[in-house]
């Protein structure tokens, strides 16, 4: 089997078309864009955590607007800058360098806006055209335009500020970027109440205006520093009817101040951005929780069973799972008295679902005479969908529920219908259901 398998795998691999000349330019352009200025920026970020939801909805008008910064949960997180520095210490380092005669481009708002165009938007320096709309001592509005794009592509507005030293040597920082090309209807970032998940979802929807028909896709990047890498999460979506609707997982790493920068770009065929929006998003702060079942508030007997189920499912140990359930009383997908083991052997991915929901907090419900109290994973079993919290929306997103799914449940007056598992108060495993009510 081993030799035969090797041969078959190599044969199968030849099905993959390899067009290096065709794929190299785009990949390398993306990679180069992320390498610029990354020196020394990455070491601070190490802990993988979750992101997502939020109920902070930002709306953009039809005209260039200044994006209001979303204040993070950390009281010290008052630094307004989104790029290149995201905290006062980093700006102080830059200012010291500027004072020593380096980076003169940072002493003018036009120079800083040009730096954004070349470093983040993929524009060639010779193509960048800037115009100052309003400049005061510590605030400026600059538009940037790519000469190659022509009149159909609207200019990008960059809001800048001097956040440290004021005066001719004071470094300018980007406070926001906007374009009428990209309209955001909803932006939602989830900050879990406790960072117990390691991935989450960025919920983002909007449209690309009708003024330009060359935009085919949109990219979202979450980062915290001068470059897009180290990345806290990125996503690309092909536009459909000029609309985008991200509800997808974004791995986000903790930032020291609970904040990061979101950059939306609309790349053209060469990777240069036709438009861009830059806003602040919140990120969780803390250490990733160790993997394992969430046993919060459950009695010892229940906790012991949950741990054994989790371990067995994780190891895909069907014999151990069989020892934990009684086919005469166990309910699998609403089929009373059946033995689920053959079905799980046939589709082991069911066990991944088991593991995933056991990692979420549990809840309990009094089932009634003869049954006592059941402990359910996930806690969403008891959630009121009419008043979902940010955390509940985050966890539903993690289980694959879209906003549309949630609305269907609300409209239908249903409760949670996703995968769930129950253990009774004696520690007896009662059910595992993955197919709805």
């Amino acid at each position, binding site marked *: 089997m081993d030799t035969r398998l090797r041969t078959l*795998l190599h044969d199968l*691999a030849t099905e993959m078309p*390899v067009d290096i000349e065709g*794929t190299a330019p785009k990949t390398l352009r993306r*990679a180069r864009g992320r390498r610029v200025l990354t020196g020394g920026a990455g070491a601070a970020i190490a802990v993988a955590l979750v992101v997502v939801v939020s109920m902070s909805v930002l709306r953009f008008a039809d005209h260039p607007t200044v994006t209001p910064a979303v204040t993070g949960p950390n009281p010290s997180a008052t630094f307004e800058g989104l790029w290149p520095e995201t905290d006062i210490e980093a700006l102080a380092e830059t200012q010291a360098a500027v004072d020593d005669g380096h980076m003169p481009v940072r002493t003018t708002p036009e120079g800083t806006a040009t730096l954004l165009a070349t470093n983040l938007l993929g524009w060639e320096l010779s193509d960048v055209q800037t115009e100052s709309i309003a400049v005061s001592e510590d605030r400026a509005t600059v538009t940037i335009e790519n000469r190659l794009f022509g009149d159909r592509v609207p200019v990008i507005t960059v809001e800048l500020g001097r956040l440290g030293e004021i005066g001719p040597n004071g470094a300018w920082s980007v406070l926001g970027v906007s374009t009428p090309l990209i309209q955001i209807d909803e932006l939602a970032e989830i900050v879990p109440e406790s960072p117990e998940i390691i991935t989450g979802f960025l919920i983002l929807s909007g449209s690309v205006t009708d003024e330009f028909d060359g935009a085919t896709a949109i990219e979202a990047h979450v980062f915290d520093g001068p470059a*897009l890498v*180290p*990345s806290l999460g990125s996503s690309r979506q092909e536009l459909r009817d000029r609309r985008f609707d991200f509800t997808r997982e974004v791995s986000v790493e903790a930032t020291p101040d609970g904040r990061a920068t979101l950059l939306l770009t609309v790349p053209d065929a060469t990777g240069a951005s036709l438009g861009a929006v830059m806003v602040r998003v919140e990120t969780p702060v803390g250490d990733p929780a160790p993997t394992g079942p969430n046993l919060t508030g459950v009695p010892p007997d229940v906790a012991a069973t949950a741990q054994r189920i989790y371990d067995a499912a994780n190891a895909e140990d069907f014999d151990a799972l069989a020892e934990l359930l009684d086919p005469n009383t166990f309910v699998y997908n609403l089929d009373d008295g059946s033995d689920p083991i053959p079905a799980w052997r046939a589709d082991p991915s069911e066990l991944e679902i088991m593991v995933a929901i056991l990692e979420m907090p549990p809840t309990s419900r009094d089932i009634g005479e003869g049954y006592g109290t059941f402990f359910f994973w996930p806690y969403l079993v008891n959630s009121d969908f009419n008043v979902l919290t940010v955390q509940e929306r985050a966890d539903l997103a993690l289980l694959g529920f879209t906003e549309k799914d949630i609305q269907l449940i609300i409209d239908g007056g249903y409760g949670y219908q996703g995968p769930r598992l129950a253990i009774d108060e004696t520690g007896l495993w009662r059910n595992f259901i993955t197919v709805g009510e």
Partner: protein
Amino acid sequence: MDALYRAHAAEALRLGYLLTGDRTLAEDLVQDAFVKVLGRFHDIRNRDAFWWYLRKTIVNLSTSYFRRRGVERAWFARQRPEEAATAPRDLAERDRLRTALMTLRPEQRAAIVLRFYEDLSEADTAEALGMPLGTVKSTVSRGLERLRHELPEEA
């Protein structure tokens, strides 16, 4: 950077394809992996190390993708039961392998591909997957068992 891409793109794409069974997904995944790894390499000197990081990133991205898909599948299966179609009977040998590979759990598939396509040792596979050696052994064993079941004539 260009040389690194040209040196490893073909192998990366083929690995991505074996892990995903989907050409478009493999291209996207490999591009993301290159961007991540190239972006983190400020001073690339050791090309072997580059491939090691790239391979690990491709594997991580694919297992992450399929794990998420697995959780979602239960919810959507009821609404789209037609997606659970069985494989056609008269598939060519290559197609049967592709179908069989996709019945494996992502970690199993990755372990099998790393062991028998990349020809990594069990220890290297364990390192690439971030698994204990014993887990790799049992994962590969179960994966092979399942492949034998799915590809009886090749057993």
